[in-house]
């Protein structure tokens, strides 16, 4: 695959705060790549650097083999779908989409044709004369996409484009964006703090935290083989435990030695162990590798989410079998359900599920990103 954008040793700070700390990233032609991370992780700044709205303190941005550090935004073959769309309120739908063609002084017939084509692609035919303020959030979103794509840029940058939409609409738009990307063959660089969105849409996910890239990989890799405790915690639910590598394919945690598939660690090396809640089987106490007491049960439709106290560590387990609170159960974990990670600066930062609450989780999800 052909590299289309390369970020090399990018550093950026505002006043004394480091926003990007040595970012190295290759973006390939025709891929859907997502920058994922909590607010303040530097994902939006990275996007704005590619768009040309920020300049790095040091490092290089290479676009199709050329250094574009000093190329202004209007000369870059890159377009952006802005957070909250940034549609021009003084122009109607047609003129918003036609904006960049008018700048290039294209002939009227070509403008008519292309705008009509773009609007039909985003299913907004017939909305030409409407004021953008009279459109719903989803429709404004489509206008923003049509406006950015009409120039056929090499790369489309999308800055949390779905954050302002409600859940149902967001799911639809995810599908649609993916479809548009496939149809146009344009590289999409997508920024989001929603890990589900990132996993479901992307070819490549870039997990960022505190101005650094934590992991780059396919959604499956990121989920199954997280690089460190941060990635494991941020993507999906995980039980993260302190462990010790006994030898290749043998790891000790929670007072039990488990078979696993990981090797290449030092003998007696301290490690972090990840077990996903859906990978734990519930068995009778006598057959369990670990035993504990159920402390809470939440019905979530597809499955139950239960919290189990094992020697003071609260595990989260997702199961379709009902267990009652205070029930003693055994846990059985297959070797391929265990993922061993090297210790990192994030080790120990993510505790167990003792303070877990669904409600809190949703609250923090709903928060809009303030600045960045």
């Amino acid at each position, binding site marked *: 695959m052909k590299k289309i954008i390369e970020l090399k040793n990018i550093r950026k700070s505002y006043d004394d705060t480091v926003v990007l700390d040595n970012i190295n990233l290759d973006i390939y032609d025709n891929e859907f790549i997502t920058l994922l991370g909590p607010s303040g992780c530097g994902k939006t700044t990275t996007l704005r650097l590619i*768009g*040309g*709205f920020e300049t790095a303190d040091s490092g290089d941005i290479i676009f199709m083999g050329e250094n574009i550090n000093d190329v*202004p*935004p*209007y000369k870059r073959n*890159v*377009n*952006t779908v*802005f*957070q*909250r769309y*940034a*549609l*021009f*309120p*003084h*122009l*109607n739908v047609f*003129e918003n989409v036609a*904006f*960049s063609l*008018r*700048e*290039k002084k294209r002939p009227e017939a070509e403008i008519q044709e292309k705008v009509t084509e773009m609007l039909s692609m985003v299913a907004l035919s017939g909305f030409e004369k409407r*004021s953008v303020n009279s459109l719903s959030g989803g429709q404004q979103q489509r206008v923003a996409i049509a*406006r*950015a794509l009409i*120039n056929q840029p090499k790369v489309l940058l999308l800055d949390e484009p779905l954050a302002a939409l409600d859940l149902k609409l967001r799911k639809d738009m995810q599908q649609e964006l993916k479809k548009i990307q496939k149809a146009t063959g344009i590289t999409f660089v997508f920024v989001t703090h929603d890990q589900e969105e990132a996993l479901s849409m992307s070819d490549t996910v870039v997990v960022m935290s505190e101005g650094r890239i934590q992991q780059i990989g396919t959604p499956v890799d990121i989920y199954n083989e997280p690089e460190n405790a941060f990635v494991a915690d941020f993507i999906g639910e995980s039980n993260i435990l302190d462990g010790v590598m006994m030898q290749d394919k043998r790891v000790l945690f929670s007072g039990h030695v488990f078979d696993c598939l990981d090797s290449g660690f030092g003998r007696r090396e301290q490690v972090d162990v990840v077990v996903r809640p859906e990978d734990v089987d519930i068995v009778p106490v006598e057959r369990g590798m670990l035993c504990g007491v159920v402390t809470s049960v939440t019905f979530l439709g597809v499955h139950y989410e239960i919290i189990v106290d094992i020697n003071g560590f609260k595990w989260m387990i997702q199961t379709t079998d009902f267990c009652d609170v205070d029930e003693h159960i055994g846990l059985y974990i297959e070797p391929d359900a265990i993922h061993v990670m090297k210790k990192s600066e994030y080790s120990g930062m993510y505790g167990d599920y003792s303070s877990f609450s669904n409600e809190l989780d949703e609250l923090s999800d709903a928060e809009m990103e303030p600045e960045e």
Partner: protein
Amino acid sequence: MNKKSNSLVQRITLLPYSVWATLFILVPLAFVAYYAFTDSDFNFTMDNVMRFFTATSMVDDGETVREVHTYLLIFGRSLKLAVISTAICLVMGYPLAYIMARSKDRTQKIMVTLIMIPMWMNFLIRTYAWMTILQDTGILNGILGMLGLGKLSIIGTEAAVVIGMVYDYFPYMVVPIYSVMAKMDVRLLEAARDLGCPGISVLRRVVWPLSLPGVISGITMVLIPSVSTFYISQKLGNGKFYLIGDAIEGQYVANNLHFAAAIAFILMVILLVCMALMRKLANRKLIVA
């Protein structure tokens, strides 16, 4: 609290303003209209209004003596000076407002204060200050003389009157434009650059159309007081440029209330029509493209 009591509270809180507006805006306006269309015995008449359009006088411009429509001539002169002043305010004020709106918060506050400070001084004092600056023996000529650049004779010219008006009304142009621009979403400017616009194009295609409401109120707030100003022309124009405001004042001082009211009334109608036309024009431009 139900809706009805809510609107009652609203009405009560609005009451003082309604009384104030009626007493000091509507009633005086009604009086102006009443006086404009009545004679000294308060019988209905169109004479005052007709006099504005028909009164003539002889003008001696040194070579020939011409007969002119007195008040139409004065009104034309007022309008010309007001339009020139407004245009200068706009040309100087617009870039300033743009720079202010794009500055840091602290700088913005300082600049707004600096622009407002002259307005804390009395209007008469400001005008007198300009007299001492512009006089033939004034500060400006003093400085020019020291630099060996000769002297300018400004006082008593139209230029002096325009300088006075621009100085007095400049803040009324800058502040409305600034407040519209300060609220403008920066992302819109970024979007324009993203879509291929170099700086000039961003200004022409996004900033200017979006700032039009501020420009319109700026023009309104400068043009109207400039047209009807009377004191500046007397002091800085050495009385040579009799403006419509001076005419109203003159008729009023001469106890000719009915004709003074008629001039004021006509001026008001003309300005209202002008502003309505301008707003309509700007609105159309704002919506279509």
